[in-house]
């Protein structure tokens, strides 16, 4: 089964990368960009076929490794 994980910075946590990208876009002439936030997108291919168990497993992976829960949030989606 395929799982898609989105990892984003929590609200209020400074995102230096997003800030720099926003700046760069402006200097490239892209106007009207109010905000940019950069996160991670991780695709996993796992053996588990039971959806509930798969979700549980990937969430455990997020908690222990994929996300830094002090500053990041994560969401897990399973492919159909």
């Amino acid at each position, binding site marked *: 089964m395929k799982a898609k994980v989105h990892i984003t910075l929590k609200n209020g946590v400074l995102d230096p990368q997003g800030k720099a*990208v926003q700046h760069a876009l402006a200097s*490239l002439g892209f106007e009207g960009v109010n905000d940019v936030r950069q996160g991670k997108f991780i695709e996993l291919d796992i053996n588990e076929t039971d959806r509930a168990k798969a979700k549980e497993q990937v969430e455990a992976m997020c908690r222990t490794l994929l996300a830094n829960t002090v500053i990041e949030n994560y969401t897990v989606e399973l492919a159909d």
Partner: protein
Amino acid sequence: MKAAVIVFPGSNCDRDVAVALKASMGHMPLMVWHRDTELPLLDLIVVPGGFSYGDYLRSGAMAAHSPIMREVKTRAEQGVPVLGICNGFQILTEAGLLPGALMRNAGLKFICRDVGLTVEHSDSIFTAKYEAGQSLRIPVAHHDGNYFADEETLNRIEGNGQVAFRYAENINGSARNIAGVYNEKRNVLGMMPHPERLADPELGGTDGKPMFDALVEALS
């Protein structure tokens, strides 16, 4: 000889390479701010190492779009020698002046140490003072030095003699151990190792110095 070093926000080896150039050239190069749009007549352009724009998004990506890079591209096309070191190499690939891309090191860690390098051939103004096959010891200091290009590109650049240096030992996952590449005309060189860091005996070696000496000899 007239050389220029391009300075981006976040460049941090600009002074180091200027000092190495001065040691070979006798005078300081011109330091050019990234927002400038024009360059005077030049014999050599150096894109130095560092963390332009913090290496945010992708190393070199934002610097590649700096106003000055348009001018650097034009000059490169006219045949002016351009040397990109470390972040400079990343910028030149992002700007499309060199083939391939530099990805995160396979070990995912920043690596700072001397590495063994082999010179592929001495047939360029950068390597004229080295012998083909010569082994060098030159420091690296990078997080994103894992050279990637698709097979077809790799075969093509190998065939054209565009590989400049290879690592003696694969430290970062680079395809075919590639540490430095030329453009087709061999007037543009990008390399991850820092020749300017071992161009002074007090810093522990001088294997990088012949590159600067060769450039000065060819371009003066």
